[in-house]
């Protein structure tokens, strides 16, 4: 709703118009009130409270006291937090490559119409509708070395000499969780990317084909630029969700082996609800929030359409 200022040479109509536009603005505000209320109650107020808590020594049970920036100072020299952050970044890279890669491959496979295709689409999407906790519990059982599926399977296929506890060493444990996340979430990114693919008019591809463009060229010069926006959406969501990973590492690995898979949110959970230092946990949350905002801005810039810049 952009209002350009006009010279008030004719009095009456302008004031009328202003009245009208004022009323329109009020009505507009009224329409977005529910959304604003939701954002204020569930985002702005909790964010303000987190900020406020991060400036206090705030035990889960008991009395809080003001400490200023002490929590942030302590955070600077807290190796555990930076280690957790570094691990989270590694996981985010692995999970994002896996999720967007598999999501895009699936989207390319299921973009056309047809009954069989509809079946596959549904099949790929089904894991998305299970919760992270229940999916994790399923994989806890699948990866149990004594009563699960994977360890005996690998042994019977001759890939391992003996029954191996996949959760006991860092490499297999890390990849197991990453694969589980790709299995669970790839369908979601498939849908986002598929909607982008389907919005590309068929004539473009046809014209390129007539001009003799090969499949890779068609993807590189037609498909890729035209799905930039849904791709950016998928990428930003994927990075943000991966940076906030918690359930799968808590439930499947307990942060093990040897505390090597503690993510940033896991660390925040431990500080807040195991060590009961809510203030310190809040300070960590604020830092993580800043990092996420920075990451999202960088991604938006990188993926900005040329004409916007």
């Amino acid at each position, binding site marked *: 709703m952009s209002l350009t200022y006009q010279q008030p040479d004719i009095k009456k109509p302008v004031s009328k118009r202003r009245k009208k536009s004022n009323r329109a603005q009020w009505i507009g505000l009224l329409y977005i009130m529910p959304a604003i209320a939701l954002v204020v109650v569930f985002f702005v107020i909790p964010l303000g409270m987190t900020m406020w808590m991060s400036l206090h020594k705030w035990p*889960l*049970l008991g009395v809080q006291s003001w400490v200023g920036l002490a929590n942030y100072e302590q955070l600077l020299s807290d190796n555990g937090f930076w280690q957790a952050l570094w691990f989270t970044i590694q996981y985010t890279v692995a999970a994002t490559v896996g999720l967007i890669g598999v999501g895009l491959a699936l989207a390319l496979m299921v973009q056309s119409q047809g009954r069989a295709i509809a079946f596959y689409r549904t099949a790929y999407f089904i894991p998305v509708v299970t919760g992270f906790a229940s999916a994790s519990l399923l994989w806890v059982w699948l990866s149990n070395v004594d009563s699960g599926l994977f360890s005996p399977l690998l042994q019977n296929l001759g890939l391992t000499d003996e029954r191996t506890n996949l959760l006991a060493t860092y490499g297999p444990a890390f990849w197991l969780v990453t694969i589980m996340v790709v299995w669970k979430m790839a369908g979601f990114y498939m849908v986002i990317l598929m909607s982008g693919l389907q919005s590309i008019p068929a004539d473009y591809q046809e014209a390129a084909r007539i001009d003799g463009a090969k499949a890779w060229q068609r993807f590189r010069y037609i498909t890729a630029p035209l799905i930039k926006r849904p791709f950016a959406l998928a990428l930003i969501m994927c990075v943000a969700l991966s940076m906030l990973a918690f359930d799968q590492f808590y439930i499947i690995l*307990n942060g093990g082996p040897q505390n090597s898979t503690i993510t940033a949110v896991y660390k925040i959970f431990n500080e807040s*609800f*195991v*060590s009961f230092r809510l203030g310190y946990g809040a300070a960590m949350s604020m830092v993580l929030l800043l990092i996420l905002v920075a990451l999202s801005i960088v991604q938006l810039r990188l993926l900005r359409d040329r004409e916007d810049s």
Partner: protein
Amino acid sequence: MTIKNLAISATLATFIVIPTATLADTFSLWVRSDGSEFMPKLVEAFNAQGEHEARLQIVPVTEMVQKYGIAAAGGSAPDALSLDLIYVPSFANSGQLKDITEFSKSLPYFDSLSQAHLELGTLDNKIYGLPFSGDASVLLWNKDLYREAGLDPEAGPTTWAEIREHAEAINALGDETYGYYFSGNCGACQVFTFTPMIKASGSDIFADNGQTATLDTPVMRSAIEFYRNMVKDGLVPAGSQTDGGQNFFATFASGNIGISPIGSFAIGALNNQYPDLDFGVTFIPGQNGDWSSFAGGDNFVVSVGTEKMEAIEAFIELAYSLEGQKILATNGALPVRGDIAEDALEGLDSRYITSFKAMENGSTPYSIYFNDLINSRNGPWITTLNRAIFSDSAEEIQNILKDGEKEMQSIIDAAN
């Protein structure tokens, strides 16, 4: 706007909506999952009296403290709960619990209540927690597998060497049968079942009233070596290394495990859920005999904001009656009223008597940083034990223990 204000307004809201001091009260009650055998039966008996009503919620043992802390901060704490006695001092210290000294002292049998429980339930001469249920760590063995392996099914192991010997014999029975099981990645399970082995061999994990961590000791090293060798020689299922407590009970219940240190709670659960499993109960032995036990269990505590004292007092009195103590005893919890314990245990088999003895003579390693040091899934206690027991070479053990001791000490020092 603070959480406290929210809590106050929430409490006020309940005042307005529900008229207080009605004749029949309904109060909310939490218990950790270890009590899922006896508590529902006790609540059933209480509700059957028809006067008041208790609404029970069972909370997973590993989430109890967090859940209560959050509920208390958010103003939705239960009226009462049966709380792991280890946590009572820190909860009382932070002002979450109601002072129930007057009611406690008015009980005619107050002096015969479990002293170990009362010690942890008392702060500055005020009573915040009343003994509720006893749970002692004991060693369980599978009599059927003992028979199959040609061992005496009536004689459980009494030294570490015997554990090893019996475990080997049972392990030889087949690919799916194992000699021994412990939850190797569960701090709470290990402090419950592994520290008694240390205690019974003349050492401990804390000194100076919980102010000094003592992990790097000769006894600890040999206990680790004992476990490590059993793991290395395949007497323990591979899943133990990553079991964060989920299979603490279930693995032995599957019937494929020869020996496992668990707690008295398992007796009731096994009898009720796996009536076909023939098992024996004995004390957790030290290296060369002697024995010890972790005397644990729950204290009954009341949230500071509750208005349902009448109903809660009635519930406590039922739990302390012979009927209540019998319900506890027959469902795997140990009675806490010394004067009628014998009557409560009457007619029960020797396994319960063994557990009660373990409870009476056991001890409770105590530290106010218990959650951080011991029970945390990522705390120094379980991280150290897991690294040491599943390490590749025996030479590493001492360094691992040294590092762990240092880390525990630094947490204790930082909190002081």
